[in-house]
């Protein structure tokens, strides 16, 4: 196919900023609806043959992700502190490639449950937090969850979990073949009266929509899929957008400012091209899908004399209510080989602890899944409480690799106004653009929930017959890949940044849809919901555009 190319002076209908989970859907839906789209991406356009099985490169050398040397960030635990660079690099970690973090995600695709959207009214709020209901319900989003499952591609077993919310269609593909970790997890969890079920994964278990089934190489988490079986935007939405002839993917093009005219309407986007030359693309409307850190950063960096607090920020909430998702990890060693390094990371999980339960004494909910954890090097580098760290005993532990699995808990984070993305007052990136400053401290209930799930994970592995169980410490968050809540959705312009259709309350031709739109954190697997929101938002944005209402 010949991809469409627009000139900067062409007035395109939409500039979509960010090509990840949300941006891919947005570009595909808007271009298929007949609109012209330029899809901006900071990183390069890599394809299936560009990926490798190389842990060092992808985990240690920023082979896919934002490079701390080029794009530095600062971190602090609360607003009274001066933010510093983390010696290890950046706290917020996301893929900087066409396809965004959908390139390297693990592909856990849980739908949110009905309760996620109405927790505030059900629980009556949590003092000192911004826990609120969403302006939309699960029922409103359900058709779009089904769209993700069928059009992006999710494998799973409908109805397997008694906790699953209602659905209009089954999954298009059967679940991934169960691994030994899944069998053991299921055995242990069923013994405890829990309800383990096949994990929904955005990985083709069989050929689907022109892409092959998984070949079980095991390099999902942190890696690009070499056979296009993982349902990344890179392989699903973006090629379909380009095939319309109305969408240009403009890679290595870093949008840093959104200029407005005197009436406050955006005129387009300013960006740096691959040679770091400044460019400007005219557009009728802008859709930000840049992730929960880069989206608020762009709004704050677009401050002007007219809008000193940043664009679309009359509420003062741009960047606020950042949520990471907490979690827990427990490892188990078994008598016979599991060989967990093969195939998709997760094949079984439980949602028995999904809902917040006042009897626990704290707010929170989550799920626990069965997995290896990562591939060899990261597995060897994990920190287990009380385990030998070097010498013959450490080497003996390394040799348990094929006999090991893990139970990971994935939990809520409460929305706190003090947790935020803001602009560092001093630090700039390699392009001279003011850098991200993260302020984050977990609510005590988030840590309590993580500890609770660590106990449940321990019990499951013990019930499954583990010879030994090792727990990893639960610590306050400093590193995150789930970047949620920083331009929250709501009906009240004083208490939210975007409305229920993802239009910013302040700027008529500016829309935002990505993890920043979340009002609550869900239970640790946000990408499915990001994409369902994007399908829904694109439908409304297209409707507004056709009605000349942008």
């Amino acid at each position, binding site marked *: 196919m010949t991809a469409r190319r627009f000139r900067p002076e062409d007035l395109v209908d939409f500039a979509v900023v960010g090509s990840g989970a949300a941006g891919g859907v947005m570009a595909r839906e808007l271009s298929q609806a007949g609109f012209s789209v330029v899809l901006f991406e900071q990183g390069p356009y890599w394809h299936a043959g560009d990926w490798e099985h190389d842990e060092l490169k992808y985990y240690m050398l920023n082979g896919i992700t934002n490079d701390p040397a080029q794009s530095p960030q600062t971190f602090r635990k609360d607003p009274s502190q001066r933010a510093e660079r983390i*010696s*290890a690099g950046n706290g917020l970690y996301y893929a900087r490639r066409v396809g965004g973090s959908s390139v390297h995600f693990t592909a856990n695709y849980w739908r949110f449950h009905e309760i996620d959207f109405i927790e505030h009214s059900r629980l009556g709020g949590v003092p000192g937090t911004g826990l609120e209901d969403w302006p939309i319900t699960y029922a409103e989003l359900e058709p779009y969850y089904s769209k993700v499952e069928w059009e992006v591609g999710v494998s799973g077993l409908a109805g397997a979990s*008694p906790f699953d919310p209602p659905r209009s269609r089954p999954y298009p593909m059967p679940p991934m073949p169960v691994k030994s970790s899944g069998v053991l997890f299921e055995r242990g969890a069923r013994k405890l009266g829990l309800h383990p079920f096949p994990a929904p994964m955005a990985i083709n278990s069989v050929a689907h929509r*022109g892409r092959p089934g998984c070949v079980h190489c095991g390099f999902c988490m942190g890696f690009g899929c070499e*056979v296009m079986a993982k349902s990344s935007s890179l392989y699903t939405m973006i090629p379909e957008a380009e095939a319309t002839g109305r969408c240009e993917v403009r890679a290595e093009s870093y949008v840093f400012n959104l200029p407005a005219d005197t009436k406050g309407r955006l005129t387009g986007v300013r960006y740096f091209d691959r040679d770091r030359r400044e460019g400007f693309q005219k557009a009728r409307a802008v859709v930000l899908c840049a992730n929960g850190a880069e989206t608020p950063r762009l709004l704050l960096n677009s401050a002007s004399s007219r809008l000193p607090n940043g664009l679309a920020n009359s509420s003062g909430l741009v960047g606020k209510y950042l949520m990471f998702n907490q979690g827990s990890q427990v490892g188990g060693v078994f008598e016979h*080989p*599991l060989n967990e390094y093969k195939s998709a990371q997760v094949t079984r999980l439980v949602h028995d602890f999904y809902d917040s339960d006042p009897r626990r004494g704290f707010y929170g909910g989550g799920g626990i899944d069965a997995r290896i954890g990562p591939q060899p090097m990261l597995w060897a580098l994990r920190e287990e409480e009380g385990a030998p760290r070097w010498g013959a005993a450490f080497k003996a532990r390394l040799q348990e690799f094929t006999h090991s699995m893990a139970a990971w808990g994935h939990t809520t984070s409460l929305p706190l106004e003090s947790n935020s993305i803001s602009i560092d007052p001093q630090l700039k990136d390699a392009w001279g653009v003011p850098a991200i400053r993260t302020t984050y401290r977990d609510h005590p209930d988030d840590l309590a929930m993580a500890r609770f799930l660590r106990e449940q994970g321990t019990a499951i592995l013990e019930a499954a017959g583990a010879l030994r169980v090792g727990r990893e410490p639960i610590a306050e968050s*400093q590193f995150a*890949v789930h970047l949620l809540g920083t331009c929250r959705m709501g009906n009240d312009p004083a208490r939210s940044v975007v409305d229920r259709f993802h239009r910013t309350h302040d700027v008529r031709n500016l829309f935002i849809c990505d993890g920043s739109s979340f009002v609550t954190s869900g239970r640790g697997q946000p990408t499915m919901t990001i994409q369902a929101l994007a399908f829904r938002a694109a439908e409304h944005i297209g409707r507004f555009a056709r009605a000349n209402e942008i």
Partner: protein
Amino acid sequence: MHCVRTAAADLMRPTLPRENKNMPQDDPPLTSSRRAFLGSSAAALGGAWLATYWPQIAAAAHAAHETAAAGGAMAFQFLTAEEAADVEAIGAQIIPSGDTPGAREAHVVHFIDLAFAGFFAGEAADFRKQLAEFRAGCGTANADVAFASLSQAQQHAYLQSVEQTPFFGWLRFLTIAGLLASPKYGGNKDGLGWKLIGFEDNHVFTPPFGYYDRDYPGFVPYTDAGRKT
């Protein structure tokens, strides 16, 4: 050195002692025809694709490794012979040899040398400084005998005394990486590290994957309603 993670996150991010500056640039560029193939024939991919293309990819990786190994007794590019001897001895304490190969046989010291000559070059000066401090401290404690020349018991005892230092954490990280990273980085010689732990770097596996999933009877649906609220 410790492995910090986002506990909830699905991606884990071990920390490096310092951020690195340089990416390795040793991957052969894709030909445009191969790129076009990859972009256009999705339906034909999967096992068939790998059967066709993997030999080329594997050959390229092998060639890169052969080049690195061509020198026989490899010359060090960053470490001096004395530094290398101590670094190798530290690595051999962290992952000792024995019935099975350890850090020494896996050429971890070459991984570390190439790292500071290449992709960790930005940290090289700091590493050398910390290594010098380690060697000086060891000499003070051991009558000026170099770490590599101490007995196994003396080496072990001295490392225990510095176990909590950033330098030891750094060496521990580098030793594990040198054991288990792709052999193209100079360590994990002949895949010894992967063999040690039982990892196979294949690109296609088929179920059953392990002992416990061989005879899985299939998922049995629930008859109760869970604790649905």
